[in-house]
Every structure is written in structure tokens, then in C-alpha cells.
């Protein structure tokens, strides 16, 4: 097809005709936003966000649904388009009800993620909570003590029995960190070799320094006073903020590499200009506001009159401040409270507050006022000083009585003097705590100040009049809360980093939608729990000195209090596209007002639906119907009243929903979210690791998302990827508190916790005795397909090289039904070829077992491939295939044999292929010619016409593919299906052959890695001397040349006492097998979760889960895929650690190999895994390095294909069901939750 030329945003592009504008733009990395488009479907075109301008068209068009045409000139970001997108977003927001972030986060000047860390605390994840706090501030211990906590003022729980105790919790988190052995140190980015000077070590300076250092810059703080900390040290008394806390927090900042130079006063000891000359790339001025404001009354210059901040500072600088017996503090702010309470502690008999307004207007924190009252402070309100009198020093303060007038512009009632009403107080010291100014005398030469005498800056960039010089904190705002300075410091760090990296200024977005008008009565169904109360020192004890008044809450209190959080902020805050776009296009959430819907949150065990946040993009409905095939969700009602609901408005769990979570993945907003497996969910930026799912043989690629030591979410690796309910939600076993976390050995009949070495030595001693007494073959090893290839290889090596036996088997080991034909017990083709085939016969592929395979098949079928689905029951796929053949399991071999017979009888075989590659065809042919199709299918409901239809479809298809579920289908049926492919020559080529759907994540690897009594890794026979020699040479050990016992023989062996010791790796057998295994003299069990077997073991070794393991799994589609650990193993020991402990304890002189070394070893020994080392740099390789089995290669290695006459009498399904402990745990959880999946 001829390419066509279009122009997007001035770029000339060539593209294929028929493409949409959106597709073309994406191909060329031009971003066009959209909320309702997905590559899965035809464009739905509902959101109106992807509008673009096309020259010659009067109105904007939707890029998602407009096909390109030659010569089109398109603009994707014109002003008109931006406005149109903005309005579309505002329309959506006009009926979108939700808080992007919790009110607590919004109220915090630093936007500290209070909801996030409170929720982590509620989940008992204190360290994670602290880490999160430290993303916003380096000094939580100090802030947790002094902050007025605006977060708590806006906390919705405050509408009920009281706000969540956010500040107490923050303080506790910091205290735990401080008292622990291993304080949290954030990671530092690689050194940038950029130098930054921070002037002032108060909260703003410390915070800026901390975040700049984390970004890899080298930071020096210049501090005027002898010690760092600014107002936190010199302005806040010890009883409120013990200086050991501040010292500790500053020391951590220093440990990160921040240098603090004290006694360096700007303007005296150095200048900004000097710093610039010294080569600092940027300078941050955070000098604070320390100079106390004057009262402006006569007599205030008398000795005995001192400024509030000066007074507090003097406490630290010169110890012997004499204040006398009567102290009056003028002012009603925190500094006034600090000063008056300090005075009392310094011995003042009378300490009083003189304030010209009433309690109501007092800016000090209520708790401070309360504690001051408790401590006996006198309050003289509506009293304003007019003069100070005294003889050479202040002795008396004369005040005017005031009354409150009408509220002024700020809403505060202005005090007015009551004429002729005066009051006098005899005093020794007067402390004027009415505010502070910036000391600018020294620096005003260099830097511009504004009319309020604070440093003037650009409000957005914090840039001062000097290039490269930024400013923040009280020096800019005037005296304010420490958290405001912290906020300034953090934002400045972002801007400064962007400035010195010459990046364009790109401050993080600030779009937030907010639910308005919530009152106590809208918060129903909430059980009342009292707010945590902070234990405090008794007032009389307090006044003894400067011991900290607040004692701190306990972790138990914190856990309880944090659990009271109402979870206001949206779970999707960091991923929501509506929020992202609203930010980009500056949409105003309240521009268009009107009636809004209010729906109830709907909670499914795995999925939370919040219809209030839905924008009706329809993606969930479509993915459920078209990709999953469940049709559990639909659009209900019309027009403005439309909503998305489960069928018949039932709870989702009662519909056809298969809990696959595809709807959650595709939802662009917070309307659909995972029901996170924690007590208190919140939006967190989780650690993400790509890996491979550990459930079935489909082997989906996943992203494991963790916080702390917990897996919180599993999502598909790619945004359009698919997962089933197990892969997405079946990970709770990993977080299970019951996990086996330590080795155990049985002593005196009881399992006791021991170190790994002790356990291994215990096992080694017993094993050696048994070996000596009964010989190597008295030992057997059973293992499961849950292990990685590398682990299985090691188990196998341990068995053969260390234990010296070939008694190696798996409960889930399946015989190889097609290896006579295909050479190996492996799929001949990859999943990638499924979509390219023109005819698929899928037999025994249970949709419930392999939901993702079912989704792939649905897609293929709807794209036109003829899909014949053979199953014994209806499923969500049976309505979407070309033909559904309902065949009872017992009749399947007869039916498949009938197809075979039809093909032979009608001479549709490929004789050239047969002659060249096949043995045993003649016998098959003569058998077939003697058969009657009618009698072969008499046990089924099919007619001869049906058989002809399927057979003809096979014959006509160029690329027929068979997909056989090895769990459900009997091996004879599978073999007949492979025979059909073979006699038509439709095997051994791309897109032609048979895919064997294996049950477990590494069922394929299990046989590949030689978990077998007869095969070494790579299907090399033990009894083949050459093969054995190869392994002996590699391992440097003599191997047992005799084939071992099969699974059944091992079980018999134990029953008859021939097998004395059994090692069971990850298997969880049924009751009967269990009772047999108990008979062994030595039973060693490697497990993740306690099972009946582990309880019966003599030694229990802790196993790591697939989320904690590194290695590879081989899926049913020939892909050997990488596993990466998302968490450290629960016990601290990887599976390889455990295996090596056993190996070494038994004296096998084998050093622990790295994973890379192990892979090299596997590559040397197993031909099909020759390239496994490439997994160091790739996510997957193909089995035998090829996506399909090539016929020439096959016959070269294994000789000609061997056909056999079908045995149609043998058709019962083999049942050897067992539940891996992990699966069992998951299915128990499902039934607890009432889900039948």
C-alpha cells in the first residue's frame, strides 16, 4: 500500500492509509491525550479529549477516530484545542465527585502526604510511614513536636469525635527511628558535582539542604549562630522540643553529606557575592526573621524590656539570664506562650500574658494556651500596653483596657480602647513577643527587599533579584510556622535543582478536585473510636525544669488512631489521567457547577468501584465484554443519568465477573481500584519490579508493587497486558503472617527454631546415617513445579550429586504424551503464533484454569481465526468461538480419532511429509481404514457431519494450531491431536503444531531440568553413559548410573520401608500420600506456609515465594522468562541459600555459585538451554532458542516421528489433583471471601 504524507505540528510524516490520526501521532512520539481510547478496541470516541485541529475543517475532530488522508495538516496543541480540551475536562469534572488528595494533605503547607503515612502506620508499617514523611521533610521529630498541625484542622474525622492524631503519629514515627539501631537514610542520587550554598540552618535551610543533597548535589550550610537549627533551636524552649531530637535530626542530614559551617554570619563573615565567586552554582537564602518587633510604647528601651525571640535565644546563648519574680509577656502568639512558660520555669513567681484581644483571637496553638493555664500563667486579655515606667529599669507596665469592635476585613474583631480605663502591673521583666522582623541591615546592599522588609522573590520560582540566588522561609514570609519554612525549603530544592540542571522549570502539578459540603451527617456508618490522648507531664513536675511536656503516644495508640482515618484521598491520585490532564490543561474543577450524582462506594473482595469518580469512558464495560468476555459491567440509564453498573445492579461478586481486574487496569480515573490487601489503603507510590507470574503455565509478565515487606499490588507489566484473578490478586500468601520464616528441627518431638546451618547439619547427620545403613537409594526427593529452572536444577544436582540417588520425582509430573512425535514434551509453537494461525482447535483448555489464554483466544477468534473449542461445559469462551464442541472427557479420544480417520480415509494426508519424517504410518493407516467414524463417536453428541466439518477445517487451514490442556485432556487424546498435525504435515513449522498448556508456572521447567527418575536435565538419559559422563565431569563426582524410582514407586518404597529419608521441596500432598510420607525416618520439608506435611517434618526449611526469587520459569509457549525478586525472602534465606546449606552440610565440595554461574553451568549441560545466560540482559529467551520446533531439527535430534495406533478405549482423565500450599492458601481465601472463581 502506498504511504501517505501528513503534517502534524509542523513535522512531515509518512503513514499507512487507514490509520487514525492518533495512531500516526503515537507512532511518531507525538502525544495526544485521550481518556477513552485503548488499543484493545475500535475507538469509542466519547471523551472529546483527543480533539485536534485539521486545516480546512471548521471544527476540531477526534484524533482517535479520524482516519488520516493525504496532505492533512494537523495541529494537536493549538490554543483552540487546549481550550476545547480544558472545557471537556471541566465538563467531566462537573460531575466528578472525589478528593484527589485528602483534606489533610491539602491543608499542610508542605502538602505532606499525611493520609499516606497515617495509613501506613495503621497497617503497622511504621518504617515505611517514616520513609514517606521523609519525602516531605527531614525533621519529622521536630515538626511532630512543634507543628500547629493544620492537617488536623481539616481532617474530616474532626467532624466526628476528633481529628486523626496526625502530629502525634508523625512524632512517634520519628521517635521510633531515632531510638532504633538503624535509622532510615534515604538514597542519594549519583554525585552531580554541583555546589550549593544554603544560608541559614533553620527549618527552611535544613530542608532545602536535605533534598538538594538527595539529588546528588554537594551542599554547604552557613549558620550565623554557634549551633544549627535556627528558630527550632533558639526560638522553641526545650520543654516543647528537646534539643537532642533536633540534634539527632540535624546529624542525620550531616551524615548524608551536608556540611554545616556555624558562626558564619551573612553580611559580616561573608557576602553572597563572595559565595558566587567561590563557585557555588546556586545559593539559597533562608536567614529567617529573628529581630523582635518593637511595641512602640514609651519606656520600652529601659533595661528589663526584652524581645520575645531575643529572650528565648538568650536562654541558649548565655545561661544566666535574670528575670526577677514578676514577668509580663506582651503578645498572644506561640513565642509569647514560650516566653511566659519559660519565665515561669526560670523561677518567676508571677508570669503573665498581656494581650489586647481575647482568647478567641489568640494566634497561639490552643494546646499551648491550655498548658500555660495549667502552669498557672496569668492572662490579662483585652489589655494593651501604653507605657513602661521605671527608675533606670522597667518596673511597671501601664496598660489600656480594650473592647472588641466589629470584625475587620480579615474577619477578626478589632480591639478598641475603652477611654480612661487603665490598669498597671508591677514587673521585673517585660518581654515583648509581638513578632519578628528579618535582620536585613547586613544584606540589603546585596539583595532586594520588599515593603514589608522581607526578601522579595518571584512567587513561583523563589528567585530573588540576583540570578542563581533563591530565598525562602521566614526571611520571605515573615515569622510563620516551621512547617511553612519546611515547605518552602522543599519546593526551593526542586526549583534549584531544575535551575542548575538547566532544565526548564516544571513544578509539580497542583490540580486537585475536592468534595465540598461534607458534614458530620454525611459521614454515616462510622464506628466511633476516641481520639488518642497525648500523655503529658503533670504541671507541677513540668515547672521543675525544662523536661519535655508531651511524652509521646505508644505504637498501639498510633495504630488505633491511624485506623480512624476516613481514607478521603483518592486511591488513584498518582495514576489518574483525569487529574493529570486537568493539571496540564489548567482545568478548574468548579468552573461549571450543577447537580452532581452521589453514588455509594461498592466493595468487592478485590475491586473497589466508586461511581462518583467515573467519567463514563466505557473502557471497563468494553474490556469486560470484548476482551474478558464476562460482560459483568454495563452502562445503565441514558443521558446525564448514565452510570456503569454490574449486571442487574447486583454486587459485582454475584455477577459473571471473573475478578480478573482488567477493568481496574483500564480505568483512567479512580472509579475502579484494587481493593488493596491492607487494613488501611491509600495511594502510595509503590516500588515496582517486573517479573513473571508464579501461577499457571501461561506465564504472564507482571509488575509486582511493594511497600516495605509487603506486596500490595500486582499489575500487568505492560499497560495493555492481561492478567487473571490469581496473577493479579493471589499474592496474599506472600504477606501472610503465618509464613515459615525460620528453619526448624524436631527435637524431643517438637519443632524448634534454629539457624539455617544448624538445620542443615541436623539433616546432614541423619542423612549420612541413613546412607550408611541403607544405601543411597533409600533416599528420595520430591519437588514441585513452583521452583525456578535454576532452583530445580540445583535440587536435581543435590539429589544426584550429593545424595547419590536418582529417586527424584514430582507429584505434578505428567508423562510426556507427545514426545514420541514431537521429540520433546514441549509445545512446538509459541503463544505469539496463536494470533497468526487461521484455525485453532483448543481442547481441554479450561477457561477457569487459563483465563488469560481464553482472552487471547477470544481476540484471535474475533479477528477471524476459526476457533473450535472442545470442552465438557459452557464457558465464557464457548459463545465467542467459531464452534463449540461439547464433548464429555471420556469421549474425547474417540472424537479425535474420528477426525484422524476422516483425514486418512479422504486421503488428505501429506504423503511427502509422511515419507520423509514419519514412522509407523502404515499401521495407523490400515487401522484407520478399518474404522467406522460413527462408532468412534457414539459416546459423544457429535454427528459424522460435525467430524467432517472439523476435519475439513483442518484440511483447508494453512496454519492450524492445536492447543491442548494437559491437565484436563487425557494423554491419549493429546497424542491423537499431535498425530493429526503430523499426518497432514502441519507441524514443525511456524504457526503449525501443538501447544501443550501446562498446569503450573514451571511445569515445563520441571521436566526440562531433569526432575525425573530417568532423565538428566535436557532429557538426557541417565542410563546413557555419554550423558552421565558429561555430568560427572562437570560436577566432578561419580553419579549413580541406575535409573531411580518413579513417583508411585517412591510412595510404595516408603510404605514398604525401602525408602527411609524423603526430601519434599514445595509439595503439599493429599491425605493418603501424607500418611505415607509420615512413615519416613527422615522427612525434610521446604515450604512457604505451614502445611500438615511441614508439621509432620523432622526438619522444616523456609521457602521463598516467587515474588522473592530470582531465576526463570518456562511457560507453555516455549518462553523462558525472567523472575526478579520484588522483596527479600521472608526468612532472609533465598531458596538457593537453603539448597547450598544442605549441599555444603553433606560435604559436597561445591561452592555456592552465583545465579550467572549457575546459568552457565545449565547452558553447558542442557542443549535446549544453551542460551539461558542471556537472561542476564533479556526478559526472556525461547526454549531451544526458537519460538517453534523445526521439523528438520526435530528429526535430526530425535529421529523420525513415531506414530502409534490410537487406543480409543483408554480415555478417562487422569486425576492427580493436588494443591500447592500457595494455591491452597489462595483458594481458601477466595472461599472466605465468598468468591467462586
Amino acid at each position: 500500500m502506498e504511504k501517505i504524507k501528513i503534517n502534524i505540528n509542523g513535522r512531515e510524516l509518512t503513514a499507512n492509509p487507514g490509520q487514525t490520526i492518533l495512531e500516526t501521532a503515537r507512532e511518531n512520539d507525538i502525544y495526544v491525550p485521550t481518556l477513552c481510547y485503548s488499543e484493545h478496541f475500535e475507538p469509542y470516541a466519547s471523551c472529546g479529549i483527543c480533539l485536534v485541529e485539521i486545516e480546512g475543517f471548521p471544527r476540531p475532530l477526534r484524533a482517535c477516530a479520524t482516519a488520516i488522508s493525504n496532505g492533512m495538516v494537523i495541529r494537536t496543541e493549538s490554543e483552540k484545542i487546549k481550550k476545547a480540551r480544558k472545557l471537556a475536562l471541566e465538563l467531566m469534572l462537573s460531575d466528578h465527585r472525589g478528593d484527589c488528595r485528602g483534606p489533610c494533605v491539602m491543608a499542610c503547607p508542605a502538602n505532606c502526604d499525611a493520609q499516606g503515612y497515617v495509613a501506613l502506620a495503621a497497617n503497622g508499617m511504621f518504617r515505611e510511614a517514616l520513609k514517606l514523611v521523609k519525602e516531605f521533610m527531614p525533621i519529622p521529630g521536630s515538626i511532630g513536636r512543634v507543628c500547629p498541625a493544620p492537617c488536623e484542622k481539616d481532617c474530616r474525622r474532626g467532624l466526628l469525635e476528633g481529628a486523626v492524631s496526625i502530629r502525634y503519629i508523625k512524632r512517634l514515627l520519628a521517635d521510633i527511628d531515632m531510638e532504633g539501631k538503624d535509622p532510615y537514610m534515604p538514597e542519594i542520587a549519583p554525585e552531580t558535582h554541583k555546589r550549593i550554598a544554603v544560608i541559614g540552618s533553620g527549618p527552611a535551610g535544613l530542608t532545602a539542604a536535605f533534598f538538594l543533597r538527595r539529588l546528588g548535589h554537594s551542599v554547604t550550610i552557613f549558620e550565623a549562630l554557634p549551633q544549627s537549627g535556627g528558630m527550632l533551636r533558639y526560638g522553641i524552649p526545650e520543654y516543647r522540643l528537646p534539643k537532642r531530637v533536633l540534634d539527632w535530626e540535624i546529624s542525620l542530614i550531616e551524615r548524608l553529606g551536608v556540611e554545616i559551617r556555624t558562626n558564619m554570619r551573612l553580611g559580616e563573615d561573608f557576602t553572597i557575592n563572595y559565595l558566587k565567586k567561590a563557585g557555588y552554582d546556586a545559593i539559597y537564602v533562608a536567614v529567617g526573621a529573628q529581630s523582635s518587633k518593637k511595641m512602640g510604647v514609651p519606656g520600652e528601651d529601659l533595661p528589663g524590656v526584652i524581645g520575645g525571640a531575643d529572650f528565648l535565644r538568650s536562654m541558649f546563648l548565655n545561661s544566666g539570664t535574670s528575670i526577677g519574680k514578676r514577668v509580663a509577656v506582651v503578645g498572644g502568639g506561640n513565642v509569647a506562650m514560650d516566653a511566659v512558660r519559660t519565665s515561669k520555669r526560670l523561677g518567676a513567681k508571677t508570669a503573665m500574658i498581656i494581650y489586647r484581644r481575647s482568647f478567641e483571637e489568640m494566634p497561639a496553638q490552643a494546646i499551648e494556651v491550655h498548658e500555660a493555664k495549667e502552669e498557672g500563667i496569668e492572662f490579662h486579655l483585652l489589655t494593651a500596653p501604653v507605657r513602661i515606667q521605671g527608675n533606670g529599669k522597667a518596673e511597671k507596665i501601664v496598660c489600656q483596657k480594650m473592647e472588641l469592635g466589629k470584625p475587620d476585613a480579615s474577619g477578626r474583631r478589632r480591639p478598641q480602647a475603652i477611654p480612661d480605663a487603665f490598669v498597671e502591673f508591677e514587673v521585673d521583666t517585660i518581654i515583648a513577643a509581638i513578632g519578628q522582623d528579618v535582620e536585613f541591615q547586613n544584606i540589603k546592599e546585596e539583595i532586594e527587599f520588599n515593603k514589608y522588609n522581607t526578601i522579595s522573590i518571584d512567587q513561583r520560582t523563589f528567585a530573588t533579584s540576583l540570578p542563581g540566588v533563591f530565598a525562602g522561609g521566614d526571611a520571605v514570609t515573615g515569622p510563620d510556622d516551621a512547617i511553612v519554612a519546611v515547605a518552602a525549603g522543599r519546593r526551593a530544592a526542586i526549583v534549584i535543582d531544575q535551575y542548575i540542571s538547566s532544565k526548564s522549570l516544571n513544578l509539580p502539578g497542583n490540580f486537585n478536585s475536592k468534595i465540598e459540603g461534607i458534614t458530620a451527617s454525611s459521614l454515616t456508618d462510622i464506628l466511633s473510636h476516641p481520639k488518642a490522648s497525648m500523655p503529658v507531664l503533670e504541671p507541677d513536675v513540668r515547672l521543675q525544669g525544662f523536661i519535655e511536656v508531651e511524652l509521646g503516644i505508644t505504637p498501639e495508640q498510633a495504630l488505633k488512631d491511624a485506623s480512624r482515618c476516613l481514607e478521603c484521598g483518592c486511591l488513584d491520585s498518582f495514576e489518574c489521567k483525569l487529574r493529570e490532564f486537568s493539571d496540564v490543561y489548567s482545568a478548574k474543577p468548579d468552573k461549571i457547577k450543577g447537580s452532581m450524582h452521589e453514588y455509594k462506594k461498592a466493595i468487592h473482595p478485590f475491586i473497589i468501584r466508586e461511581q462518583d469518580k467515573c467519567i463514563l469512558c466505557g473502557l471497563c464495560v468494553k474490556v469486560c465484554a470484548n476482551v474478558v468476555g464476562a460482560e459483568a459491567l454495563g452502562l445503565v440509564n441514558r443521558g446525564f443519568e448514565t452510570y456503569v453498573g454490574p449486571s442487574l445492579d447486583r454486587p459485582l461478586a454475584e455477577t459473571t465477573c471473573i475478578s480478573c481486574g482488567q477493568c481496574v487496569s483500564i480505568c483512567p480515573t479512580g472509579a475502579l481500584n484494587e481493593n488493596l490487601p491492607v487494613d488501611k489503603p491509600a495511594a502510595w507510590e509503590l516500588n515496582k519490579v517486573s517479573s513473571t507470574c508464579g501461577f499457571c503455565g501461561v506465564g504472564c509478565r507482571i509488575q509486582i508493587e511493594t511497600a516495605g515487606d509487603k506486596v500490595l499490588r500486582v499489575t500487568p507489566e505492560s499497560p495493555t497486558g492481561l492478567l487473571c484473578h490469581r496473577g493479579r490478586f493471589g499474592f496474599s500468601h506472600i504477606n501472610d503472617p503465618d509464613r515459615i520464616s525460620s528453619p526448624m528441627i524436631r527435637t524431643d518431638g517438637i519443632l524448634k527454631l534454629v539457624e539455617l546451618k544448624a538445620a542443615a547439619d541436623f539433616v546432614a547427620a541423619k542423612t549420612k546415617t541413613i546412607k550408611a545403613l541403607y544405601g543411597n537409594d533409600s533416599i528420595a526427593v520430591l519437588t514441585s513445579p513452583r521452583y525456578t529452572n535454576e532452583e530445580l536444577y540445583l535440587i536435581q544436582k543435590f539429589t544426584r550429586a550429593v545424595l547419590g540417588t536418582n529417586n527424584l520425582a514430582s507429584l505434578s509430573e505428567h508423562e510426556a504424551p507427545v514426545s514420541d512425535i514431537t521429540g520433546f514434551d514441549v509445545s512446538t509453537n509459541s503463544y505469539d503464533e496463536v494470533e497468526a494461525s487461521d484455525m485453532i482447535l483448543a481442547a481441554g483448555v479450561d477457561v477457569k484454569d487459563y483465563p488469560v489464554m481464553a482472552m487471547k483466544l477470544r481476540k484471535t477468534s474475533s479477528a477471524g481465526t476459526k476457533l473450535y473449542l472442545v470442552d465438557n461445559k459452557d464457558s465464557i469462551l464457548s459463545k465467542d468461538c467459531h464452534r463449540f464442541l461439547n464433548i464429555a472427557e471420556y469421549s474425547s479420544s474417540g472424537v479425535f480419532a474420528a477426525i484422524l480417520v476422516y483425514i486418512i480415509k479422504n486421503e488428505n494426508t501429506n504423503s511427502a511429509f509422511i515419507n520423509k519424517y514419519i514412522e509407523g504410518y502404515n499401521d495407523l493407516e490400515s487401522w484407520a481404514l478399518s474404522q467406522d467414524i460413527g462408532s468412534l463417536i457414539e459416546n459423544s453428541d457429535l454427528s459424522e457431519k460435525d467430524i467432517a466439518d472439523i476435519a475439513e477445517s483442518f484440511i483447508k487451514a494453512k496454519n492450524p494450531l492445536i492447543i491442548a490442556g494437559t491437565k484436563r485432556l487425557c494423554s491419549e487424546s493429546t497424542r491423537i491431536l499431535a498425530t493429526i498435525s503430523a499426518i497432514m504435515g502441519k507441524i514443525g513449522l511456524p504457526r503449525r503444531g501443538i501447544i501443550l498448556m501446562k498446569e503450573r508456572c514451571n511445569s515445563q521447567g520441571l521436566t526440562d531440568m531433569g526432575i525425573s527418575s530417568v532423565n538428566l536435565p535436557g532429557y538426557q538419559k541417565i542410563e546413557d553413559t555419554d550423558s552421565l559422563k558429561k555430568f560427572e565431569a562437570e560436577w566432578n563426582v561419580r553419579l549413580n548410573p541406575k535409573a531411580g524410582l518413579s513417583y508411585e514407586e517412591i510412595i510404595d518404597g516408603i510404605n514398604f520401608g525401602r525408602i527411609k529419608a524423603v526430601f519434599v521441596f514445595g509439595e503439599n500432598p493429599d491425605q493418603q500420600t501424607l500418611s505415607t510420607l509420615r512413615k519416613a525416618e527422615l522427612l525434610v520439608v521446604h515450604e512457604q506456609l505451614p502445611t500438615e506435611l511441614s508439621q509432620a517434618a523432622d526438619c522444616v526449611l523456609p521457602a521463598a515465594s516467587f515474588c522473592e526469587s530470582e531465576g526463570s520459569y518456562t511457560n507453555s509457549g516455549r518462553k523462558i522468562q525472567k523472575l526478579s525478586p520484588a522483596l527479600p525472602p521472608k526468612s532472609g534465606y533465598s531458596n538457593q541459600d537453603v539448597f547450598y546449606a544442605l549441599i555444603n552440610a553433606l560435604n559436597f565440595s561445591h561452592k555456592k555459585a552465583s545465579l550467572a554461574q549457575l546459568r552457565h553451568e545449565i547452558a553447558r549441560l542442557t542443549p535446549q538451554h544453551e542460551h539461558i545466560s542471556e537472561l542476564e540482559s533479556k526478559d526472556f529467551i525461547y526454549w531451544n532458542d526458537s519460538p517453534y520446533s523445526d521439523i528438520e531439527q526435530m528429526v535430526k535430534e530425535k529421529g523420525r516421528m513415531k506414530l502409534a495406533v490410537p487406543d480409543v478405549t483408554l480415555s478417562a482423565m487422569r486425576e492427580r489433583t493436588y494443591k500447592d500450599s500457595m494455591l491452597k492458601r489462595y483458594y481458601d481465601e477466595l472461599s472466605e471471601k465468598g468468591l467462586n472463581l
Partner: protein
Amino acid sequence: MEKKITVRVGLSTCGIAAGGNKTYEKFNEIISDRKLNINLEITGCIGLCYHEPMVDILTGDGKVFSYGAITEDNVAMLIDEHLIGGRVVSNLLINEDKDKVTSKQVRISLRNCGLINPDSIEDYIKNGGYKALKKVLSTMTPDEVIDEITASGLRGRGGAGFPTGFKWRATRQSPGNQKYVVCNADEGDPGAFMDRSIAEGDPHSVVEGMLISGYAIGANEGHIYIRAEYPLAILRIQKALEDAKKSKYLGENILGSDFSFNLKIKKGAGAFVCGEETALIASLEGKRGMPTLKPPFPAQKGLWQKPTSINNVETFSNVPWIISEGAKSYTLFGTAKSAGTKVFALAGKINKGGLVEVPIGTSLREIIFDIGDGIQGGKKFKGVQLGGPSGGCLPENLLDTPVDYDTLIQKGAMMGSGGMIVMDETTCMVDMARFFLNFTKDESCGKCVHCRLGTKRMLEILVLITEGKATSEDLSLLEELAVNVKEGSLCGLGQTAPNPVLTTLRYFRHEYEEHITNKKCQAKVCKALLTYTINEKCIGCGACVRRCPVNAINGERRKLHTIVPELCVKCGNCVDACKFDAILVE
């Protein structure tokens, strides 16, 4: 033998609504009781709905006497006087008016309506029916049919005015063996009933049109998507299909040719948006009736993803005439760009409401004043809403606008399916826009953001304006929304929904401003803005007091009464009750 007299009772929905069924029953009763030698038949609507129930008396000599307002009560009288006595009842005779109204019309689409018995295929054939089909099947190739339709300049009568020949050709040329013809009979505009009238009065013309279309595009299956609210039309079409099938006009090898064609009726559930062709297809397929973006057009991928040609009832009814009379005859009517005639449903404050068919390009003034006989009660014309709820409203100074597709679009209105709602000075244009927007908002399918939320928010602002609670910022937001909804909506419903707002803002902006700034509604429609007071003309009769439902009027007998504004609910009862013009509404 003297030719038999035939009595035809107009039994379209309009006739039935006026009591036509009872009239018919009465005739039947008397004719059979008295064993009169009179043919009693039914017919469709001739368009003079204000005369219903209408009865035509066809005497043997070819004369037709049309009577209006023949209810069951005067049937006996009419029989006695005219049928037996031979005396024309001149006070009920409407021949003169009928001539007056119809003489200014050109009836092509409505050629048989009100004249033939819709239930009689013979009647249809007698009037030239199925002649076109025969001609097509015996003498024309499909391409020649399309050429003829193209040459006639026929454009879709459903509203968008897409050239029919072009659509047919596109469908014919789309690859594939299976194609469909769909008749859109989902007429949803309030006040529009052209399609219903045709389906009720001349169903075979639609069937024949579809057959010709099927032959032309290469389809042998057709669907008539008709709203379930048209039960009579459905019955008549069903009967027509049965009769056509019996007469071999429908089914396999029609009239002995190779052409086979079958028709099915699908009843729609009354969603306005299903008149949009892609939504109609979705509904036909059993899905939720939501539009999809075009392209692909139905001509490429329509019903079941197969090429599909969709036309509405009126379009199809024109087709047999064009084939019979030739494209050239059709182009004698109308304008250069819009040939032929168009049926309009005249409604609102007009003297003679009903259906009229005129050559395209006839001016609004001619239609409203010459044919429709002007405004009721001698009031002043204010505006006319064209094209249904999503059309636009044109003011008096545009009365000479020729009614054709392109001129109307240019003026901000549209032809639509032919609804014409006439408004006089008692109509508040803001309230009118609110009314229509309320309709489109309710009928939005809810798929696209602009339509689902935009129409709702616009309506909310309009309500604020009518309640006197809006600010000038609200007005600019309303305008911004209107423009964006028009540009951003997915289908015709949303794209045209703001039209009433946009045109009233264009032509009657002062009314909006008056509501917002002066809090006044000059047409005295917006209740919230009205105050009721009693002036000195009051003689204290107490009539108003008795009628007031909320006891808001006080006053002693024979003394000036007063209205308590806090209690008054502005129902207007007092105005009606007062014989002295003493209630002042401002």
C-alpha cells in the same frame, strides 16, 4: 347502474385523535342498519388536521365533497342531508379551504395521503403504485436507477439533506454481497409527524421506494425501524407488507425477475437518538442505542458491519414518483441545490396547523402566512423554530428566507425533518430554548461528554436565567458551552442540541439580557420573574379570591384587593377570573 357513492373517513392518528374512529363506526352502523348502498372506506391524512375528523364523500361522477368536524353526532345528519337528501351541508363543507391550502402545495411525497385507502394495495396500484418498480425491474439497470435518483437531486428528507443518489452509489460500490436497505421511521422531533402520516396514509409508497433502493444498491433485505409509539403506522405497514407479498411485489423473484427482496419491521423503543443512523443500527443489532463516529459510514460498514443504505420514510416515498415521472420532472420543483418538495409539519401558534408539502425554496412567509394563514388570535409573529428541538429559531426579519437546506444552515437553523413551530409574542425565547434543551438533554444517550454533560449544564444555566438567578458570567459560560457542545459532540443530536440556544442568542439576545439584568420576562412566561399586583380597576368583586389556590389575595368586598407576594404562586388563575382587567402581571 348508478355508480356507488364512497364515504372516506380520515383515519390517521390525527383523525382518530379527533374522534374519527367513532365517526367511522357511526357511518358503519347507520349504513348497515339502513342497508345503504354506500362504500365506507378509510383514508390517511391530507394535512388539514385542524378540520379533523374529516369525511370525504365521493360521488359517482368524480366529485369529492370534503367535510370537516364530522363527529359521531353529526354523521346521521350528514347521511340524511347529503347522502340521502343530496343536499350539501355547506356549513361543514371545507372544499374551499382545502383547495386554498392545497393549491399552494405540490404534493409528491403526500400524493396519495388522504386520497386513497392505505389498507388497499389495489387503491395504491390504481393510483399508479408499483408502476415505478415494474419500470425499474423491466427496463433499468441498478446503475441507471441510481443515475436517475442522482439526477433528480433528491436529498435525504430526514434532516441532514445528504444526496440520496450519492448514498445509494456508495453503498452499491462498497464491496460485499450482503447489503441492507434500512428505512428510518424513528421520527422523534416533537411536533413532527410527516413520516407517520405517510406511513399511515400511503405505506406502499415507502415499500416501493425501499424495493427500488434495494434493487439499486444490490440488497435483498430491508428493515423498517419504526418507533413503537406509532402503532397505527406499524399496522398499516404490516398490512402493506402482507399485501405486497401476496401480490408478488415482495419476496422471491419479484414480478418474475431475478430480484428478491424481503422486508422486516423493527419496533424502536422510542429513544430520540435512535433516529441517528449509527445509533439506529446499534439498536437494530440489539445493542444499546449509542452512535458511533463516522467514518466508517453505514454505506461502508452498517448493519452487521455490511454496507447499508439508510433513508427516511419521506425520502423513500419520493422515489417511486421520481422513477415514474422522471428525474427531470422532479427538478422542476425546488432550487438548484435542493430539488423537489418537502413536507412540513406546521404547529404552534398558527391558524392552520397541519402537514404541507411545498417546493423547496418556498419562503417562510408563504408557508406560515399564505398556507398556514398566519398567527392565531391576530397576535404578532415572533419566531419560528425549524428542524425540531435541534433546529434553530428564526426571527421576523428572516421571514422571507427561502426554506432550503443550505440557507437554513447559514442562518443557524436547519431543515431537519420538517418541523415548523410558530411562536408569537407570548413565547419567551429563553423559555423556548430551555424547553427544547430539556428535550435533547433527556434524549442524550449519555455516551459523549459534551452531549451528556454539556446539555445538562446548559439547561441548568437556562433554568437559572428563567428564574432570574443567572449572572452575565453564566451567560458567557452558556455560550462557551453551546459552541463547544456543537463542536465536540459525537453525533448529530449533540452537535445540533445547542442550536435553539445559539439562534436565540443570535436573534433574541436582548431577551436573555433582560432576564439577567432586569430580571424581567417580557413574554410573561418565566414565572419566577413575574409579579402579580392588583390595580385600581379592581371593584372588589372577590372573583379572584375564590380562584386563588393559595389564599394569597386579601381584601374586603367592594374594596381594592391586594396580593401577598410571598404567598402568590403565580398560577395566573386570578387573571383569568378577573373581568375588570385589574390584575397586573409584570
